[in-house]
């Protein structure tokens, strides 16, 4: 295949060896209008820090567009451009191919430039899926699509998205007296789906910024491996999940230690679980009950014990029954599903 692929070299971005070796410089800085304790803003900051100065960032509509770059204002140190809600994939492709063409024609200096397009779960898992899928099938362009997933359309005041977890309270799924659970769908498995379906894509990972070193090294690997890559980040959202912002970091840790959010990377087709997720899979770390995670969030305040048990059973199934635990939801036999009434 390599003979047909016309790809340029990427930047050499070595893994960061420890938090004390972290680059000091910021490329996404203070003065954005996000919520107190916004983990998605933290993703932007650390993503930019990992990528470094020779980077172009494209952002589709969502909190990280509206709050960071309100009229005539920006927090970006590197060049940043807005793109439409569902077009992070096409914008990344366009920017990467544009840079390639300008370099070939000698209009700009020939050098590797990181192209990162980010999208929220609404812009990525819902609206942008086809464009992201298309971008990941083109091996000729170096680009990273990073999806920051706060599990709702948080910017427009928390409507449910394909990424919203079962039963959560959103503007579109308010629990009522007659019907308690108004959202019955299970969260879309974005990284697993893209990894399973895009053999030309060399790198797909899930991250959580409560584990910043691994997440930043994921960004670095995605930018230096060559070709299109995808990272899915779970971002606790104090506004939509309804919790005290000081718990942002802890909430991300809980998502991982309860097994709700598995951390893994798929590098050239090879799957590797990492961090606490790896310990869980190897039986070295006992998963926390999801109750610890759910009862800390106002969006699950209406859950009964039955609902919590059901949520737990679905997470257990992910670990005990899936052919690739935590990653791909293929089962060996049909399982019955009985959500509480």
């Amino acid at each position, binding site marked *: 295949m390599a003979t047909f692929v016309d790809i340029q070299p990427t930047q050499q971005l070595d893994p960061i060896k420890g*938090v*004390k070796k*972290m680059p*000091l*410089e*910021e490329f*996404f*800085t*203070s*003065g*954005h*209008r*996000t*919520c*107190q*304790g*916004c*983990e998605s*803003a*933290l993703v932007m*900051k*650390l993503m930019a820090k990992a990528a470094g*100065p020779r980077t172009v960032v494209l952002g589709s509509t969502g909190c990280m567009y*509206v*709050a960071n770059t*309100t*009229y*005539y*204002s*920006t*927090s*970006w*140190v*590197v*060049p940043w451009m807005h793109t439409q809600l569902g077009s992070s994939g096409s914008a990344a492709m366009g920017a990467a191919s544009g840079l390639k063409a300008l370099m070939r024609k000698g209009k700009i200096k020939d050098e590797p430039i990181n192209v990162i397009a980010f999208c929220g779960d609404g812009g990525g898992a819902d609206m942008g899926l086809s464009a992201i899928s298309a971008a990941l099938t083109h091996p000729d362009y170096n680009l990273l699509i990073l999806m920051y997933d706060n599990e709702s359309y948080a*910017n*427009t*005041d*928390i409507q449910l998205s394909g990424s919203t977890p079962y039963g959560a*309270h959103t503007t579109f799924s308010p629990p009522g007296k007659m019907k308690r659970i108004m959202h019955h769908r299970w969260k879309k498995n974005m990284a697993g789906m893209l990894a399973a379906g895009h053999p030309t894509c060399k790198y797909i990972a899930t991250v959580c*910024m409560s584990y*910043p070193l691994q997440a930043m090294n994921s960004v670095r690997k995605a930018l230096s491996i060559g070709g299109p890559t995808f990272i899915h980040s779970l971002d606790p959202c*104090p*506004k*939509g999940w*309804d*919790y*005290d*912002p*000081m*718990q*942002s*970091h*802890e909430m991300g840790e809980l998502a991982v230690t309860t097994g709700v959010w598995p951390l893994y990377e798929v590098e050239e087709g090879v799957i590797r679980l990492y961090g606490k997720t790896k310990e869980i899979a190897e039986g070295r770390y006992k998963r926390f009950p999801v109750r610890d995670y759910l*009862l*800390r*969030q*106002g*969006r699950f*305040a209406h859950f009964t014990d039955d609902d919590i048990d059901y949520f737990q059973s679905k997470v257990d199934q992910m670990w005990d029954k899936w052919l690739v635990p935590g990653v791909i939801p293929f089962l060996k036999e049909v399982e019955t599903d009985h959500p509480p009434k």
Partner: protein
Amino acid sequence: MGRLFAVEIVYRGIFQKTLAKNISRAIVLAAHQEGKPGISFGRYGDSPERNGVPAKNFAIVATDDQTLEEGMAKYEPKEVDISIAVDDTLCKGVESWAWYGLQPINRLLKPGGTLIVTSREEPEALIEMCHRKEYPYQLAIVKGIPSFSGLWVYKEDHSDVRILGAIAKVLPELFSLESVQKAIRAEWKDELKATSAARSYERITTVTVPPNQGNPEEPFKFELPKWSEMREGVTIPAIPRGHAMENTATQQVGGWQPERNPTFKKFSTRTMRPVVDFDTCIKCTLCWLQCPDSCFDVTPDGLYDANMQACCGCGVCEAVCPVQKCVTMVNETQFRDNDSQWEMWNKDKEGYKKWLLEKIEHGPGPQRSHGFRYRGQYEEQVPEMLEIAREG
């Protein structure tokens, strides 16, 4: 021509969204009880709200329909009879979500108008926080811990009806206590809430703030370019790269101070601020690394100094710090400036230690809670808040 009443409710985005909506809605409902038409609305530019970023609701009431229509022709009121700050730290100024610059909390108050504040502070402390005004106005304090909850679960601590009772006292022309109680009974069907409103009505005291009393600072402003001055493609310059820091005492150069967005500073979002004990800091990097607002400057000696122009007070730094009382969140009412703590520590380490201990141990003010931490937490907090309400 009738009389037009305007009331603004200034609140912390998301945390007090339901509270502010309850107040402005009930103002109009209480006025309806007296046959006065009115309308309650949130300020368009504040939506989508962000946790902690100041936002506003308005209640406009008139003695007749025509006066109301005339009042409503304005996008938002240019002056108000009452400004309500449901959190006392808003007295330091309001930098709204889609606004540029800082606005004094009393900016829209008419001469002689009333600023109602929920606080446990004394009037002197609040007046010192509010920006100066050329003419006198009234200050009324509803004694209590500012009520914070989240988007989905509301903390039912009677903060809403206590404000309503206070309004009936300071502006009886708008509506009487009786009308407020009628509206409360109709809206909440809760006699206890009606009693809370009456208690607040009886207890509320007002002081007159004379002209030119308060914070003398000029609130910061920005010049935005006119459309004819914009660049091609409406592009704007990026934030410049930062620079190493210098210790002016030792001439040591190092660390990193990022440049920051000059048009949004975010400190008016803060209700608590981190104070850092540089002597016990183990330089683990976590506060700096985990701060979503990049507010920590890395000093030449490898310490982390929270920049008080940029910090919005989320408290993540305190949560991730592995050392006991190295980073401590302290009530924002305890501070009068945004100066660098590291520079203060550099100049006088003994003095700093004393200041720090005083802030942490003696002066943190009421324990603040910024929303949902676990199921059942609000139910635990409400009795204490109601107790304070009873004491007045």
